[in-house]
């Protein structure tokens, strides 16, 4: 090798070594030499990320033994799983509530039951639906970071005065249908211009349609998609395609923008009523602050008054992946987030309700969502429900969403679509039991 070649190789080596050293500094777990560093991966970016960072800063200031390092990670649920498989997971992971069962089945999470008992974190401190989220096979796997409950949101300007209040707006699906027929607007060519309601908007919770009609997705040891309640729900959904025309709904819906944008169907006045979470008010404030809206419980079938006042609840969670380097310190941080003052500040900043049983009056008084008491009440109601407790939730949701699309595009009847979905989920469940649950 010539002297020039040697020099070039040495230079290259030096650059490589420098890069390794710098990158190691950037990603190192030892952000602080004087404290135990807890690495915390979270999905949130933007304002939500900033508010969680404030919580982390509060914890770091509150004691001098542990330093939590907050990292916003896209695709956090998949990366956490892969990092756990690789033996180098974060100490705390901010996942979605519907990940819990699947990750527990996959042996990816640490059982928090004993740590919670030691720290005095207990069921009585929480609204039942939110505590229940973290329980699977009688063990605790996660605690909430921020929760949500859902309600029907109504644009008061788009509905007649006689129904423009939470008290007078339709409470049943049948009454809602009549209102939709009354207020929806089509142009001369029959193209939809404003819909009173559309089951496909926002399209996030298709798995819940059977539950709104009284069905159960998991019944004992069976996954039950094709039930009389589901058929009834899908017949109701099918009615909207028939009411407006499948093509007309497709064309109209394709003009809807993202829910967090001014082009959102509800905020832009294209749909008069929509099922949405407590956080919707954040976006209304941001993109459509003059919108005159109110919220009320989602409707129920007229012949099932026992299903009145229900709410689909959801939750972002904090958990400790299996193989985390500092589980005790990680739980100390999780327990800090559960403190009433800390939780209320975070939930208020995120525009959400609190998962805790005890909520201060100041939380309600200063909350940015004017309907916060309704969302709190709905979360506490016995009818509050969350995603089914099974590691198969992703597949169940996928199959029901597909069945929904088959029905709403007119490709299949509700009966056909649900029967096909049931057949497929039976096969998947059988495989899951053998391969994952080792039954």
């Amino acid at each position, binding site marked *: 090798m010539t002297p020039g070649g040697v020099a070039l190789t040495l230079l290259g080596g030096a650059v490589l070594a420098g890069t390794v050293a710098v990158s190691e500094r950037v990603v190192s777990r030892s952000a602080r030499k004087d404290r135990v560093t807890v690495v915390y991966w979270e999905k949130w970016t933007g304002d939500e990320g900033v508010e969680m960072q404030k919580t982390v800063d509060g914890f770091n200031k509150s004691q001098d033994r542990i330093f939590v390092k907050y990292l916003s990670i896209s695709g956090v649920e998949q990366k956490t799983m892969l990092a756990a498989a690789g033996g180098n997971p974060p100490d705390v992971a901010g996942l979605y509530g519907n990940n819990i069962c699947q990750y527990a089945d996959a042996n990816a999470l640490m059982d928090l039951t004993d740590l919670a008992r030691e720290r005095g974190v207990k069921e009585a401190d929480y609204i039942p639906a939110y505590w229940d989220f973290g329980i699977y096979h009688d063990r605790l796997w996660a605690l909430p970071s921020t929760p949500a409950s859902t309600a029907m949101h109504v644009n008061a300007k788009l509905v007649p005065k006689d129904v423009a209040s939470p008290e007078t707006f339709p409470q049943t699906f049948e009454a809602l249908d009549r209102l939709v027929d009354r207020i929806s607007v089509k142009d001369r060519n029959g193209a939809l211009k404003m819909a009173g309601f559309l089951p496909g908007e926002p399209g996030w919770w298709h798995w819940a349609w059977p539950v709104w009609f009284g069905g159960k997705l998991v019944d004992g040891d069976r996954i039950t998609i094709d039930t009389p309640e589901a058929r009834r729900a899908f017949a109701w959904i099918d009615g909207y395609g028939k009411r407006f025309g499948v093509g007309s709904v497709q064309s109209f819906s394709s003009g809807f923008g993202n829910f967090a944008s001014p082009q959102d169907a509800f905020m832009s006045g294209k749909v008069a009523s929509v099922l949405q979470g407590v956080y919707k008010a954040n976006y209304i404030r941001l993109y459509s602050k003059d919108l005159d809206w109110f919220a009320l419980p989602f409707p129920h079938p007229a012949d099932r008054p026992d299903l009145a006042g229900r709410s689909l609840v959801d939750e972002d969670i904090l958990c400790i992946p299996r193989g985390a380097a500092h589980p005790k310190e990680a739980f100390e941080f999780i327990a800090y987030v559960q403190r009433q003052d800390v939780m209320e500040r975070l939930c208020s900043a995120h525009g959400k309700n609190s998962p805790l049983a005890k909520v201060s009056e100041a939380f309600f008084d200063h909350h940015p969502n004017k309907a916060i008491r309704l969302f709190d009440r709905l979360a506490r109601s016995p009818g509050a429900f969350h995603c089914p407790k099974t590691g198969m939730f992703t597949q169940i949701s996928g199959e029901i969403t597909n069945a929904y699309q088959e029905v709403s595009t007119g*490709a299949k009847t509700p009966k056909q679509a649900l029967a096909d979905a049931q057949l497929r989920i039976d096969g998947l469940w059988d495989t899951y039991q053998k391969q994952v649950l080792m039954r």
Partner: protein
Amino acid sequence: MKASRDARVGILFALPWIFGFLVFTSYPLVASLYYSFTNYSILRSPSWVGVSNYRELAGDEVFRKSLANTLLYALGAVPLGAVVAIGLAMLLNLKVKGMAFYRTLFFLPSLVPQVAMGTLFLWIFNGDFGLLNNGLRGVGVTPPNWLGDPSWSKWTLILIAVWGCGQAMIIYLAGLQDVPVSLYEAAELDGAKLWSKTRNVTLPMISPVILFNVVMGIIGSIQTFAVPQLMFPGGSPARSTYMFAMYLYDNAFQNQRMGYASAMGWVMFLIILLLTLVSLKLTDKHVHYEG
């Protein structure tokens, strides 16, 4: 002595690549073949299940649907992409002023990242206020719902594939510039017109390039992932755009069925191999190599 020293230096320089190839390509390849015969849920050790993943694939309705979608997509996107790329390459092979500018202009779209492209086309193909449908309405055509109607959604993806034909176009252009001018002159002396020259001189002379691009197009089409994943989450509507690679990804990273996904990966490899061999066999007599 010098030769062996040169070889040592050569191997030394190639070592990083050899290391990378062994660790990041060869090992995953062999490992995925092993995993395809196992039940592997990432966090548990793989357990041997023989051919049961492959047997399950044979009866998997969604697998068949995703495979059919992918093959239909390839059947539309590859020929259409080839025709457009050859056409553009021919136009860009003309002797006109400012050709360097035009060549850059037509190549630029293929540099756009897939995610940006998907987002852009979501707006263009929007059924209600999209650029394309507004144009169609302007000329009195009732436009389809490109994104929401299952009978149109695959066509949307096929049309989008044409957008990225810049890479193939550049290769065709290089091939066209390699065609000897003397052949065109001889054809003109025989009275050949444009179409005759194209059919009898240009296409036969660039046939190896066409074959190369078609094979690469088949491989790319069968692996297509980013644009449909972004534009049609979950293969919506009603799995009409659910591609093979999307189903593979969902099994691996959402359902944690790495063994099943590995089996799908090997089926994909065999399909690509088969289609490549069929392409080579079918075109054997129509591809002309110089010399």
